[in-house]
C-alpha cells in the first residue's frame, strides 16, 4: 500500500495488567494457552468495546508487536475508532490516526479484566473455551434476531 496511515511498532497494556495477560497465555486450562498475546488483546478489546468503557493506559508495557496483527484485525481496530470519532476523514490526520491505537488500547484495558473474569469466574478450570463460546453464541443470537426484525 503506497499511502498508509500511522501505525505504531507495538500495542500495549498497563504493567499492572501483565499478570492477567500472562495467566491467560501460560495457564494450560486457558483457551489462550500458548497463543500470541495479540489474540488476548483483540478479545479484550472487543469485550471492552461491548461494555462501552475505556480506561487510560498507565505505565504502558508495549508487548504486542503491531506487525503480528493481520490486515482484517487492524481494520477492526480502525472501524471502532471511526465509529467513535464519527467520520472516515479522521484517517487523514496524523493526530487522529494515533488516536485509533490509543482507543484500541483503552478498550482492551477495560476488556482484559472482563475477559479474565469470564474465563475464571466459575472457579473451575477448563471451562474457559465453553464460556467464551457462550459469549460468541450470545452475539450470534443478537445478530440473528436483528436480521429477522
Amino acid at each position, binding site marked *: *500500500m*503506497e*499511502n*498508509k*496511515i500511522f501505525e505504531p511498532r507495538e500495542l500495549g497494556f498497563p504493567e499492572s495488567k501483565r*499478570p492477567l495477560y*500472562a*495467566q491467560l497465555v*501460560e*495457564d*494450560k486450562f486457558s*483457551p*489462550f494457552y500458548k*497463543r500470541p498475546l495479540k*489474540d488476548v488483546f*483483540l*478479545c479484550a*478489546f*472487543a*469485550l471492552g*468495546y*461491548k461494555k462501552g468503557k475505556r480506561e487510560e493506559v498507565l505505565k504502558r508495557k508495549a508487548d504486542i508487536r503491531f506487525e503480528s496483527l493481520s*490486515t*482484517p*484485525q487492524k*481494520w*477492526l481496530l*480502525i*472501524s*471502532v475508532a*471511526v*465509529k467513535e470519532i464519527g*467520520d*472516515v*476523514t479522521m*484517517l*487523514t490526520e496524523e493526530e487522529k490516526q494515533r488516536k485509533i491505537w490509543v482507543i484500541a488500547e483503552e478498550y482492551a484495558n477495560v476488556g482484559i479484566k472482563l475477559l479474565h473474569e469470564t474465563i475464571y469466574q466459575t472457579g473451575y*478450570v477448563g471451562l474457559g*473455551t465453553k464460556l*467464551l*463460546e457462550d*459469549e*460468541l*453464541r450470545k*452475539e*450470534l443470537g443478537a*445478530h*440473528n434476531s436483528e436480521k429477522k426484525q
Partner: protein
Amino acid sequence: MILSSLELENYRPYRGIQTIEFSTDPEKNFTVIEGVNGAGKTQLLNAITWCLYGQEEHFRSDKDKKRGILNDYVKSNLGNGQKTRVRVAIKGKDTDDKAIHFERSVVFHKDQKGNLYEETPEFICFKMIGRDMEPIGSPAFMINRMLPEGIRNFFIFDGEKLDDFFREENAEKVKSAISDVSQLTLLDATIDHLDKTLDGIRTSIKGQTPKVDLLNEKMKAFSSSIEDMKADQTAKEAELEEVRRKVRELDEKLNGTDVSAVKKSQAERERITQMLGSTEEDIELENGRIRDTVIAALPSLVCKDAIEYTLKKISEKRTKGELPPRIRRTFINELLEKGECICGTDISKDGDRRKKISQLIQKIDLSEISEYINEGNYELNSALERMAPIGPNLDEIGQRMAALEARQKKYQEQLGEISAGLKGLNIEEVSNNEFLRDKYNSQRENLSGDIKVLQTKIKGATDIIEMTRKELEGELKKSERNAHVANQISVGENALEVLKDARKNIVDKIRMTIEEKTRAYFLSLIWKKETYTKISIDENYNVSVVNSLGSECLGTLSAGERQVLALSFMAALREVSGFEAPIIIDTPLGRISKEPKERIAEMLPKYLKKTQVTLLVTDEEYTPPVKQKLSKSIGKEYVLKYVEKESKTYVNAYGK
C-alpha cells in the same frame, strides 16, 4: 575413554577373581556378555558404577539389593578373626590415549564373636604419565572429567527401564535429562549465590521503613512457601512414578496369568484403552477447532456495528464522489506552488481562480489514502461475509463432539465392565490384583490432580513475588537513605534476570538440538519410515511423535518403537553432552518382540558406529538371528554361568 578390562574380586556373585576383557577394536566395537536371568549381568552394571562412582543402583529385586556387595559364600565361610576384600578394577585408556586405572576396594573382617565389619572403601586411580603409572590425587575429579555423574545414565543403563522412559508422562524426565547434559552447574551456582546475596541485602535494610519490612516479609514468606510446594511437588511426582510402576507390575501379573479369561480381558482392556486414548485426542482436536473459531470470530462479531458504520461512511464518500478521488491533493498543491494552472492560467496571486482551485482541496480529503480505504472497504466487507458461517460451523463441530463424547463414555463403561469382571472372578489372586489396580489408578488420578494444583499455586506465588519485588523497589527509591541499597538490589536483580535468561537460552538451544538429533536418529532407526513424520520436544519438555496423518501417536507406539525412541533420545543426549565414553546396556532387547528385536539388532551397529559398546543380554534376547545381525561388529563374547551351590558366577569366553 575406552575400557580394556574389568576385574572383579568377591563382588556379589563374582567370587574369587573374575576378569572380563572388552573389545577395543573400533571395527569390532561390540562386547556381548550373555547370561540367563540371575547370572549376574545387572551386577556387572553395578560393579562399574560402584567402582567409578561408589554407587549401585541397578537391582532387579529388593533381595539382591539387601545382599550386600561381599559374595555370599565368602561371607559365610569367613572365619572369626579373618579378613577378606571386595575389589573392582577398571582398566582403560583416557581420551588422550594414555592408560588409566581405577580401583575401588573395601576390606571386611570378622571379629572373634563372628560379627562382620566393613572398613571404609578405598578408591585409587593411576594414569600413565611419561613411562610410569602415577597415582592421581583426586580420582573423583578425573571421573567427573571423563564422564560426570549427572550424565552417566545415558552411557550406562538398563534397557528394560528405557522402555519406561516414554511410556507415561515424560516431561519431567526429559527436562531433567536435558538439564543434566546442559552442564550448567557453574551458572546455577552463580544464580544461587546472587539470589542469596540479594536476600542478604534485603535483610540488611530491615527496620528502616515499616512498608519495606512488610514487603520483605511478604517476599520471604512466599519464597519459603514456593520452596515447600516444590518439595511437595517433587515428593508427589516420585509417589506418582511409584504408583505407575505398581500399576504396570499388576498389569504384567495379570498378563502373565494362565487363565484365558483374564488374558482375554487384559487384551481387550489394552485395545479399548488405545481407542479411548485416540478418541480423547480427537476430542482435544475438536476442542482446538472450537477455540480457534471462537477466538478468531469473537472480536469482529462484537464490533459488527462499528464495521457496518465504517462501511456506511465509506459508501457515503463514494456517493458524494470523493472516493475514488478525481484529483490528488498533492497535484493541487503543486499547481498552487507553481502558480500556474494546467491550462496555463496564472494563479500565483490571490484571486478568484486561485481561491477556486484551493477550495478543491477540501473536497479531496481522502485522496492520499484512497487506496488504503479501498483496502479497508474490502477487508471489512470480507469480515462481514465471514460471520455468516460461524454459527453453522460451530454447530457442526458440536455434533462431532457429541458423537465423540458418546464414544468416550462407551469406552469408559466397557473398561469399567472389564474391571468389574476381573474383580468378580473366582480367582483370589486375580480379583485382588484388579482391586489393587483400581486403587492405584485412582491414587494416580489424585496425585496427577494434586501436582497440577501445586504447579498452578507455584506459578501464582511466583507472580506475587515478582509484583512485590517491583513494589519494594519503588518503596526503596522513595527514601534517599535507601537509594544506594535500592541501586544495589536493582543491579543485582538485573544481573539475575540476565543470568536466568542466559540459562533459559542455553537450555532452549540444547533442547532444540536434542529434538533435531532425536528426530534424525529415530527416523533413521525406525523400520516404519513412512509412518512417522515428526518428533518434537516443546518448551514444556513434552515429547510428541506425529504420524503421517498428522496425529499425535506417542501413546500408541509399540514397546519396540518406544525403545527406538528412547535409544534415539539417549544417542542425542550423548552427542550433545560431548563426552566420548563407552556405552554399556543391560537387557537392550528384553521387552521387544521377535521381529523388531532383529531389526534393532541390525541397526544398532550402524547407529553406534565406532563407539565402544557392551551389551549384557539374556539367552532369550540373544537369539541366533540377533547374533547373526550383530556378528560383524562383535569383538569379544562371553557367557556368564552362575553355580548356585558355589555362590559363584563364572565368566567364560563364548563357546568354551
